């Protein structure tokens, strides 16, 4: 459906996109994930034709160079919706249909159908200013879907909504896209949103693709320290692997058999840090604890090495100030390539 080949965009000296290759298959939902400034939105704008870029963009196998925005037939839902304030809900949803010269009766039918689909039946005559954030969201979605775009792009689709609504909408969106068979390219900075929505996740960093994979792959095997840290993992140290043991500032850490030998960076997922009696592991002082619902995150200050985050069941969480031992589980230890550009 969509293929990008070596797409680059420069703003002055800074590269917003740097030789990006990307492919989205029919009926697939791909989420581009990255911190702000990583070039996610620019990527969508390039595909839509709103941003000049070098490299090639193919839609359905056709090169899009020189094709103006309004002839590309893609849908784009803007970050802050950009609903037309002087038109009512129906006027907004019907806009794309009118541009395609759809007849009056067809417009009315499609608008009713789409509002039903996004859960706002009968909202045709309402003013945009009178809608809540969640309702605007739905209208923006209906407007983008109305002309049946071959590719639907969403820019931070749930960005400004509160948490509860967001979690509900993610489920609804996923159902909806499955039902319609729409091909979707979404960008977000929220990993929860990306993992819930996507078949495939693309992690971006400073205009380059840092990792591509299913949500499970990315979560379990971050490809680099950057991805690991972006996902919220902070237990990363330098290590030297020999055999099934890595030598780290925290002492010996077990690794899975067959691991690449030599110098590397090493991540221990918090779930892989077990709290044990002081004498059975690395001696640590409990610096802080944060209640996270089904588990408690415990920040440990080890006798040697940088701070360490551990996860444990609420009932077993030690108090701040307590002295505990820490042991590591090989299955939750991930070896990352050394990052020369990071100290």
């Amino acid at each position, binding site marked *: 459906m969509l293929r990008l080949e070596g797409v680059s965009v420069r703003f002055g000296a800074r590269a917003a996109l740097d030789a990006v290759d990307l492919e989205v298959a029919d009926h697939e939902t791909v989420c581009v994930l990255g911190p702000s400034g990583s070039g996610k939105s620019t990527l969508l704008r390039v595909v*839509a*034709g*709103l941003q000049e870029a070098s490299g090639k963009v193919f839609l359905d196998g056709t090169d899009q160079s020189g094709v*103006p*925005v*309004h*002839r*590309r*037939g*893609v*849908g*784009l839902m*803007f970050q*802050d919706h*950009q609903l*037309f304030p*002087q038109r009512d809900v129906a006027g907004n949803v019907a*806009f*794309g249909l009118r*541009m*395609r010269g759809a007849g009056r009766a067809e417009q009315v039918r499609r608008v009713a159908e789409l509002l039903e689909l996004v859960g706002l039946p009968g909202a045709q005559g309402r003013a945009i200013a009178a809608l809540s954030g969640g309702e605007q969201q739905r209208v923006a979605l209906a*407007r*983008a879907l109305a*002309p049946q775009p071959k590719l639907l792009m969403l820019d931070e689709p749930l960005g400004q909504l509160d948490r509860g609504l967001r979690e509900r909408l993610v489920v609804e969106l996923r159902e909806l896209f499955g039902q319609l068979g729409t091909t979707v390219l979404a960008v977000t900075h929220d990993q929860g949103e990306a993992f819930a929505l996507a078949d495939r996740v693309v992690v971006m960093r400073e205009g380059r693709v840092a990792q591509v994979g299913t949500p499970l792959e990315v979560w379990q095997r971050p490809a680099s320290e950057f991805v690991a840290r972006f996902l919220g993992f902070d237990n990363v140290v330098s290590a030297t692997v020999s055999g099934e043991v890595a030598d780290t500032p925290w002492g010996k850490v077990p690794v899975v058999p067959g691991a690449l030998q030599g110098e590397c960076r090493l991540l221990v997922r918090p779930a892989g840090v077990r709290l044990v009696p002081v004498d059975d592991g690395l001696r640590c002082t409990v610096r802080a604890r944060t209640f996270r619902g089904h588990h408690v995150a415990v920040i440990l200050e080890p006798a040697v090495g940088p701070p360490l985050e551990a996860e444990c069941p609420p009932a077993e969480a030690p108090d701040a100030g307590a002295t505990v031992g820490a042991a590591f589980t090989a299955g939750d230890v991930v070896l990352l390539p050394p990052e020369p550009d990071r100290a």
Partner: protein
Amino acid sequence: MAGPVAFFAVFFAYPVAAIVGRGLDVGGAWQFGRIGEVLGDPDILQVLWFTSWQALASTALTLLIALPGAYVFARFDFPGKQLLRAAVTVPFVLPTVVVGTAFLALLGRGGMLDQLWGVRLDTTVWAILLAHVFFNYAVVVRTVGGLWSQLDPRQEEAARVLGASRFAAWRKVTLPALGPAVAAASLMVFLFTFTSFGVVQILGGPAFSTLEVEIYRQTAQLLDLPTAAVLTLAQFAAVGAILALHAWTVRRRESALRLVDPAQTARRPRGAGQWSLLSGVVASVAALILVPLGVLVQRSLDTPGGYGFGYYQALQSQGAGGGTFLVPPVDAIWNSLQYALVATAIALVIGGLAAAALTRRAGPLVRGFDALLMLPLGVSAVTVGFGFLITLDKPPLDLRSSWILVPLAQALVGVPFVVRTMLPVLRAVDGRLREAAAVLGASPLRAWREVDLPMVRRALLVAAGFAFAVSLGEFGATVFIARPDNPTLPVAVARLLGRAGDLNYGQAMALSTILMLVCAVSLLVLERIRTDRSGEF
């Protein structure tokens, strides 16, 4: 941007430069000595001194009288507010000639005060000052009151809660927020009064003369072009300085103020103090604005044979003017309307293009262009008019015998208003709305029609109204270039006033009344479609 720049180069910079050059360049040698000579002349110094101090005094007096008005219009809700606000704005779009005439009818020889109490002010500076207040009241109420009504009253309440007295809260919170708006309004008033022509020409008599009047006298009566050129340069320098100051304060006004919907901040006055403030403001508006307008109408109906439409009927005959005109004065109405329509169209195209260019681009060059657009408001209209006569009379631009000359000159004055009105609205249109339309399949042209036009339509109408009213009242330039057989309304009024006799005087009043009504009607139409967003005036 190229269009407006070319327009200004050909129809503004070229004529003004040509006339200044003609004045200072004698026999191929630049006579810069003239500058010192002219500026050393005690008579000219007297004019410079009077121009400056009357402008300062007018500005101070206007602020004194209009600031309470700004507060009342911003913060109080009372019956008839809309109507009063419209009435207050009428003078601003009135031709200066009409303003002068109205005050002459009120304060002059045989005027209302003369008849009632034997008081005449037309030989004193007070007539000029009062007329300037009358003229500029709306500038202050609009600029300051407009911002005041959008200031969140809760800021003052927050200060009160923190222990400030009512006055201290106003002084520490509201006044600093209003400061830039007050400064901008003062500068506009100063600019308008500094370059005042019609009012001073009619009310000043031989005793009082501003730079602009002196330029007219030197050019048209004494044919002393070098002196006029020096004076034009002096005024140009002064106006440039004022405009630079204005641009600076306007930019400061855009600093982040938290603005709220004006409808939420106004409430009914409470207590004796607020009611007396309201009645004081209404009384001053009545005395300063409604009475002069009323007197004008009354005089136009007060014929020797009792009240009637005698003077209006006389306007239709050519001979009645005592040979003042080649055509019946009533024809001037038709001329004026035609000229004003064409001038409005030109001003809209040029001003619209300029505003669009200013929205799309940024940088020091554009800011300079922005300031340049305001110059015609302050540069001697007399110079522009005379410049037209001497530069546009030979190929490739031989327009001397063409009717288009008058609308072109009038459009010059209309353009700044169009730009000021359109700019805030155009800036408010979010570019991403256009992108949203494009993604949904709208071509660029279609996107402009579907997104921009609906939002800008109102501002466009308001701008058109302003341009129309302004070109209808333009006097300084038109008086030079309007042909004797095609006078405009203000020119006809001035000619009638220049002649002796009750009939001429009465006809002037009648014509002024007609002009006032035309302006007032276009303003009332504007008031209905005006949005709070549109316009910095």
